């Protein structure tokens, strides 16, 4: 009897193995595969949880609505813990699955993106860096496979300065601004732009770095108290943000004079800070709330069917959740754009997806059709502009929620874009890259 059961079990295992081996091959032709080197544990796990929850919910939503013109989306997560080495390991593990019909890769980490810029170009896999990563990759002639979509750290810094300028009657001359930053690649990215803006607008810029992870900032804020700045611009992430807000309270610095980057402006940063966060401002490239019809429809469709990615549904509609949805919207629209050129109903290859990302035209009309009016700004990319927008909103924490303070603000493109170009040219020279002629790209 036992022998018989054993034989049946072996036969069943072999059959299952054969089926598993043939299934991916059969399904691959009709699937677009997204590798997701994400993070849900570790020091920044709470942030990753909301972002990737939103991202996956949208992919599920698209699938439930019939896919991208009939092409279903598949994905596989790999935990990076926001660690560069693990990020690269995840990329290497998943890249073979993505080589046939990839979705843009989203690492939500500037450090991991830096590590993947060259690798993904060599492997011909499109890398998206929405609101993070290597700023000079805006220049698509040098970085054909990297897409710092929507906006970059430098354009964001410039937009913040524009906002402050408007707030001060059109001039920042004689003002003092402290730049408090995470002492990492991410934190240092906007320095170039802030220095250029300081020369132009004649304000004094004081740079104060905070060592990782930033859970102790007594000395930095004592220095800020001594400097008596008019504003503090903060480029923080994770525990650094909340510590900064709480230490500002401790030092008696008004939160209404603190402006965070878009990675320092989520509910994860303000809710745990309690009353200390009231009045604190930040930039953002997407809005919060379930007022956007798409977010409400995801909740109804995906969570209604019990397929939601997040156990904690209170995260739906938060800044980072909506950002994840926005990133997924842009990725899917890039594939749709590619399909319009290369054939609807087909899974798109790497070069085709790259083309789609480079020829995105997400207008307000298209956003409206998606139910995403106002969720993010219009995005129109090209060979020499992989950013496609450069616009952000300013928002303020009212004690319970983020309230938009402005419409979309664009940074000083004339000042900032030449900085990208110069940096990209330097990169091309160092790496021996011959830039593409963008006038010939269509």
């Amino acid at each position, binding site marked *: 009897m036992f022998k018989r059961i054993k034989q049946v079990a072996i036969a069943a295992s072999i059959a299952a193995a054969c089926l598993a081996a043939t299934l991916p091959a059969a399904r691959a032709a009709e699937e677009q595969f997204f590798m997701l080197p994400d993070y849900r544990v570790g*020091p920044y796990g709470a942030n990753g949880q909301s972002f990737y929850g939103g991202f996956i919910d949208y992919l599920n939503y698209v699938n439930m609505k019939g896919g991208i013109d009939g092409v279903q989306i598949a994905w596989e997560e790999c935990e990076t813990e926001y660690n560069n080495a693990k990020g690269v390991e995840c990329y290497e593990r998943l890249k073979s699955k993505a080589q046939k019909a990839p979705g843009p890769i989203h690492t939500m980490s500037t450090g991991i993106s830096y590590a993947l810029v060259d690798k993904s170009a060599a492997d011909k896999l499109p890398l998206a860096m929405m609101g993070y990563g290597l700023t000079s990759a805006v220049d698509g002639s040098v970085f054909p496979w990297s897409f710092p979509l929507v906006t970059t750290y430098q354009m964001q810094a410039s937009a913040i300065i524009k906002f402050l300028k408007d707030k001060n009657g059109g001039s920042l001359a004689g003002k003092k601004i402290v730049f408090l930053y995470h002492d990492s690649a991410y934190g240092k990215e906007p320095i170039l732009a802030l220095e250029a803006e300081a020369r132009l607008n004649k304000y004094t810029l004081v740079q104060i770095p905070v060592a990782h992870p930033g859970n102790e900032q007594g000395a*930095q804020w004592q220095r800020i108290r001594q400097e008596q700045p008019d504003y503090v611009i903060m480029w923080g992430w994770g525990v650094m943000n*909340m510590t900064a807000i709480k230490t500002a*309270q401790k030092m008696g610095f008004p939160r209404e004079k603190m402006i965070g980057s878009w990675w320092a402006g989520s509910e994860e940063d303000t809710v*745990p800070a309690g009353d200390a966060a009231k009045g604190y401002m930040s930039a953002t490239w997407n809005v919060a709330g379930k007022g956007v019809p798409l977010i409400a429809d995801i909740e109804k469709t995906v969570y209604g069917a019990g397929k939601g990615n997040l156990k904690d549904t209170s995260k739906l509609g938060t800044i980072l959740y909506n950002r994840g949805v926005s990133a997924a919207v842009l990725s899917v629209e890039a594939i749709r754009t590619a399909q319009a050129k290369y054939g609807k109903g087909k899974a798109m290859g790497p070069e085709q997806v790259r083309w789609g990302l480079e020829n995105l035209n997400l207008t307000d009309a298209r956003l409206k059709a998606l139910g995403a009016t106002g969720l993010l700004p219009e995005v129109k990319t090209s060979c020499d502009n992989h950013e496609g927008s450069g616009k952000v909103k300013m928002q303020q924490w009212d004690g319970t929620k983020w309230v938009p303070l402005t419409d979309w603000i664009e940074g000083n493109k004339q000042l900032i874009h030449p900085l990208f170009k110069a940096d990209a040219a330097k990169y091309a020279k160092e790496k021996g890259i011959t830039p593409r002629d963008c006038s010939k790209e269509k």
Partner: protein
Amino acid sequence: MQFFFEVLIGGLLSGIMYSLVALGFVLIYKASGVFNFAQGAMVYFAALSLVGCLEKGAPLWLAFILAFVIMTLLGIATEKFVLRKMVNQSPIALFMATIGLAFFIEGLAPMLWGNQVWPLDIGLVDEPIGWILDRYNIVVSSFDLTAAGLAMALVAGLALFFQYTRVGRALRAVADDHQAALSIGIPLQHIWALVWAVAGFVALVAGMLWGSRNGVQYALTFTALKALPVLILGGFTSVPGAIVGGLIIGASEKLAEIYIPPVLTDIFGGNFGGIENWFPYVLALLFLLVRPEGLFGERHIDRV
């Protein structure tokens, strides 16, 4: 000069917060000769347990007791499943076991309580004390002062416990030699479980204070990194050493962060700063060269 004193006082008060974490290390090292790498993870686990109970509707006092019970159970489990099997093993083997334990706890905690950033309100406001600010223009946080008071009380209690109670003496005997302690009838298993529970209590207090200041989140595990130079400086076996070490490290890192970067910028150009992560280790290293056993550590002499 006023600014110097403000930085100094802020540093001393931060240092006491480091001492709280260092205390947990000292307790376990004193009782078992184990350098407990998992202490940072225990701080995180304790704070998460506390907010987890608060989220379930328990009042703060009850949540604190429940979290302490959870930490005691964790201590007993650690003794039963990890340490009991390793009696009389080399210190490095025990150290490695605690590394494993740290990763296990760091993984277990968010599985049990979730991975979000939890606010923790213990009724202390982290704002400058008005009359000090008005009279001397120096910022001293009421939160920091209360935390300092709490830490001092804890230290005094633990010092008395180690020095004057039978259990305290037994703890010290166990630390000196596991087998010798066993041979004279000291119940090693009970002592270890007890000391891990006490270390859990210290982790809970540290987690509660750090958590209410920065939110209860994974980054609490990094507080252990702040405690290491404190231990090197103060000695691994001394409770008062943890406090004095904490004060020195806290004050020196803040003063260094303020006064050293401008000097480096003047000499080399560029932007320095963010040195407070490594400066305490350099200081501790220099101390090691002069007093390897730390300020209050026991000098180890071998007969040749």
